[in-house]
């Protein structure tokens, strides 16, 4: 990870203590915990050349150019020859090269999803700054340091892995230091976290900590549940302010959005008056670095990681004590920014601020706070789709999906742009124009609106929602028809809202998206025809039963496996699959810990200079494995007592299972409407943003 090149960041003392026995890399400089460390992204320790290249990169991402911006070819270290020394086998050329699109992998029909093109769809591992800046920035010494640890894991195969492979074999480089360390701090229970969070690690001594968490009901667990409690308003006399501030500080994660003029726009916890002092401070810090033309990207203070993203007139700040690293937090900030664009569109946003830099954006965004908060809480709980930037599909037979696809195509009306059937947050089927794919980040916004936030569903009717899908086109609105069908009752009786394992109501949603704002009745007619047809040909019953069945458990997939859980991402399809969280990860806390582990694994294999294919990690509470090839990413977790061989065997079995089930667990291709509108027509049809800002389009 760590493409952002934070150097000398966040060396945490506790982390060193814990890591002494395992550490494979030289210890880093230690900083005083209480000071702001490594404030600059491309500052401290970087060569002037490096700095300037990164800054120009940052500029090229400015709103004016980002539409047309294409990432350059993947970074190739200029001193690549150094890496070739030793046991760097030719096979390792298969290491993931982050930014290549691999058209040759999509030899089957193209998927419904693409991840290219939009700068905001940054890869989990590397924010877009990476693309250009990384080309020449690796000093030889760092490359060697990184390489040194790669050697340790060269020999992995399914059944044997050298002992060295079990060491924390991520590639620590100066470049990535801050990120990776803070992450591992999480895995190893180090001091990056708040004391309360660390308390959770007291179970490290238990033989099977994930299990014990399952049954745990003590104060520490309760504490994480309080993460989502509301902070009440400040009393008129200000009497409760201190108590509220303490409550505010006890939250493990914050998101703040403010305008570059310092006006608060959104914050997850507490009201703006309560924390106006902090908003002022953060704005001062950020603009201090802006003033020096040296953009602030992140810093660590008092055990919390601060990541700052500046998007045109907005500053977005994530503050995390959960041990996530910078690129991962940045992906989350991107999603919040996308949500704002989805409400306003980019031209509206820039127009408002170019007219009046002191615009108070809270008013135009009024009513969307629940959407932002739903996103923020998803990230705080931990979200595999966000971590992997991928989608999950409902597992049904290929032939069944084919019938649904065909039904969608048959019933589609001419104004339809995209048609989707989604069941409890998992995609069932999609129909799309041939030349257009759906962007995972757009789908994330839609799914968040429908399945995480309560607003749309609670209305109980059909909905007609203008929204901008920034991945599709950030300049205009599309219109989305939404209708929910209960997975438990026949149509029309949607009273009983049951909740499945992940807390989402088990509902099936029909989403029909059009560029024509007058097409509600057309789409409504299509929906009626579609649902009638799906009921008639039995597809609805299949979808309902698949939803009710839920995800299989890991032991259903691989009988007798030691695996507790895994994530498998198909890179070509930009989709992932995973087993049920049950039985090991039913509580909020257990799931958060699992996701933290996945974050750590993900960070290790995506670290810029870690040309890792396999990463094996042992901690006191689990053993885990990350396995990355050009085709897939697999992350799997077993209990601490499982042997490495058993884990590796299970990983292979998972791969075999996915290979066998590929056309069931993933949507390959989706339904393409052949007489699709071409790109120009769609852009012409895109409706300009509503209201007074329409002259911008």
């Amino acid at each position, binding site marked *: 990870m760590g493409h952002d090149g934070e150097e000398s960041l966040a060396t945490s003392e506790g982390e060193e203590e814990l890591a002494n026995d395992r550490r494979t890399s030289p210890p880093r400089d230690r900083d005083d915990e209480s000071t702001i460390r490594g404030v600059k992204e491309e500052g401290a320790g970087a060569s002037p050349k490096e700095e300037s290249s990164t800054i120009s990169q940052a500029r090229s991402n400015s709103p004016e150019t980002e539409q047309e911006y294409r990432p350059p070819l993947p970074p190739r270290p200029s001193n690549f020859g150094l890496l070739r020394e030793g046991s760097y086998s030719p096979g390792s050329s298969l290491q993931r090269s982050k930014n290549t699109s691999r058209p040759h992998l999509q030899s089957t029909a193209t998927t419904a999803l693409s991840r290219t093109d939009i700068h905001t769809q940054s890869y989990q591992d590397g924010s877009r700054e990476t693309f250009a800046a990384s080309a020449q920035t690796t000093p030889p010494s760092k490359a060697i340091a990184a390489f040194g640890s790669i050697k340790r894991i060269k020999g992995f195969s399914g059944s044997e892995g050298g002992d060295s492979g079990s060491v924390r074999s991520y590639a620590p480089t100066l470049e990535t230091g801050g990120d990776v360390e803070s992450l591992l701090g999480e895995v190893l229970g180090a001091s990056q976290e708040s004391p309360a969070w660390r308390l959770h690690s007291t179970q490290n001594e238990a033989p099977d900590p994930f299990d014990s968490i399952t049954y745990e009901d003590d104060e520490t667990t309760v504490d994480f549940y309080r993460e989502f409690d509301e902070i009440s308003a400040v009393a008129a006399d200000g009497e409760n302010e201190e108590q509220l501030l303490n409550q505010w500080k006890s939250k493990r994660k914050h998101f703040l959005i403010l305008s570059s003029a310092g006006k608060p726009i959104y914050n997850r916890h507490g009201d703006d008056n309560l924390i106006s002092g902090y908003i002022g401070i953060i704005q001062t810090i950020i603009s201090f670095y802006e003033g020096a033309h040296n953009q602030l990207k992140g810093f660590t203070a008092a055990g919390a990681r601060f990541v700052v993203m500046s998007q045109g007139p907005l500053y977005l700040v994530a503050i995390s004590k959960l041990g996530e690293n910078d690129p991962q937090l940045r992906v989350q900030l991107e999603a919040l920014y996308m949500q704002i664009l989805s409400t306003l569109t980019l031209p509206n946003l820039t127009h408002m601020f170019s007219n009046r830099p002191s615009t108070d954006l809270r008013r135009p965004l009024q*009513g969307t706070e629940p959407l932002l908060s739903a996103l923020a809480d998803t990230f705080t709980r931990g979200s595999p789709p966000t971590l992997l930037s991928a989608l999950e599909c409902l597992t049904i037979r290929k032939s069944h999906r084919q019938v649904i696809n065909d039904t969608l195509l048959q019933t589609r009306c001419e104004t339809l742009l995209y048609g989707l059937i989604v069941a409890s947050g998992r995609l069932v089927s999609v129909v799309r124009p041939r030349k257009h794919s759906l962007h995972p980040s757009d789908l994330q916004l839609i799914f968040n609106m429908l399945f995480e936030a309560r607003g749309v569903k609670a*209305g109980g009717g059909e909905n007609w929602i203008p929204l901008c899908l920034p991945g599709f086109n950030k300049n205009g609105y599309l219109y989305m028809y939404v209708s929910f069908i209960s997975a438990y009752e026949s149509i029309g009786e949607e009273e009983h809202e049951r909740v499945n394992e992940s807390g989402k109501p088990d509902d099936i949603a029909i989403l029909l998206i059009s560029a024509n704002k007058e097409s509600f009745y057309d789409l409504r007619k299509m929906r009626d025809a579609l649902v009638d047809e799906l009921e008639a040909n039995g597809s609805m019953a299949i979808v309902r039963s698949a939803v009710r069945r839920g995800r299989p458990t890991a032991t259903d997939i691989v009988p007798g496996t030691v695996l507790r859980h895994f994530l498998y991402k198909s890179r070509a399809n930009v989709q992932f699959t995973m087993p049920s969280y049950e039985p090991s990860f039913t509580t909020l806390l257990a799931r958060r810990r699992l996701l933290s582990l996945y974050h750590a694994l993900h960070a290790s294999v995506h670290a810029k200079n870690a040309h890792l294919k396999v990463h094996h990690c042992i901690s006191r509470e689990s053993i885990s494995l990350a396995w990355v090839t050009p085709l897939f990413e697999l992350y799997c977790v077993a209990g601490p007592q499982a042997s490495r061989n058993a884990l590796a065997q299970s990983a292979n079995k998972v791969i075999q299972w996915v290979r066998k089930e590929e056309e069931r667990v993933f949507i390959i291709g989706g339904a393409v409407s052949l007489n699709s509108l071409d790109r120009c027509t769609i852009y012409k049809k895109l409706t300009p943003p509503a209201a007074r800002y329409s002259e911008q389009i």
Partner: protein
Amino acid sequence: MSSRVSTGARPGARFAQFKLVLLGESAVGKSSLVLRFVKDQFDDYRESTIGAAFLTQTISLDDATTVKFEIWDTAGQERYKSLAPMYYRNANCAVVVYDITQASSLDKAKSWVKELQRQANENIIIALAGNKSDLVAEHPDKRAITTADAEAYAREAGLLFFETSAKTAENVRELFTAIARKLPLEQAGNRGMRANPRQGVDLRPEAPGTQGGGACNC
């Protein structure tokens, strides 16, 4: 024009379908009124409506008469304002809602009434609803708009008027029933299909454009 009046199976039974739109400032309780009317439910904490929601509810006026409302529950935020015409364009009736504890919300309601009277269907029936009367029942000092003031305005502008509470269901059913009674059920010759949202001439055969009664506002 989008109403449908037809005689049902039973001799003398009438069935009419009307399009109704709810307008008003955000957070005055439009969605709550609809939820109470359609599902007889109430949510203490409700998130803002996004875009607009479309619901239907059927009521019986008497043994022989059934009225079906197609209800557009719109979002109150300013940014959705430009979409409002699409919802009220063919509406037969409108409920403009304000919050009796918020003085500014009546001003907003008045501007909606003005817009409807200027832009919408000429014969549109407008009801003014002062919502959240339960708050005032508990704390009379919370009231910001007196019943007399609002009533005087409603009379002057020719509106139906009710003070309602979605929470306690007070006057909710009465509001919609009063609208239904005022609607032109007798125009039996008007058998327009479901509200046609399109502007301009519609040439599709399945939608005979019988523009009876109301003026065309296209």
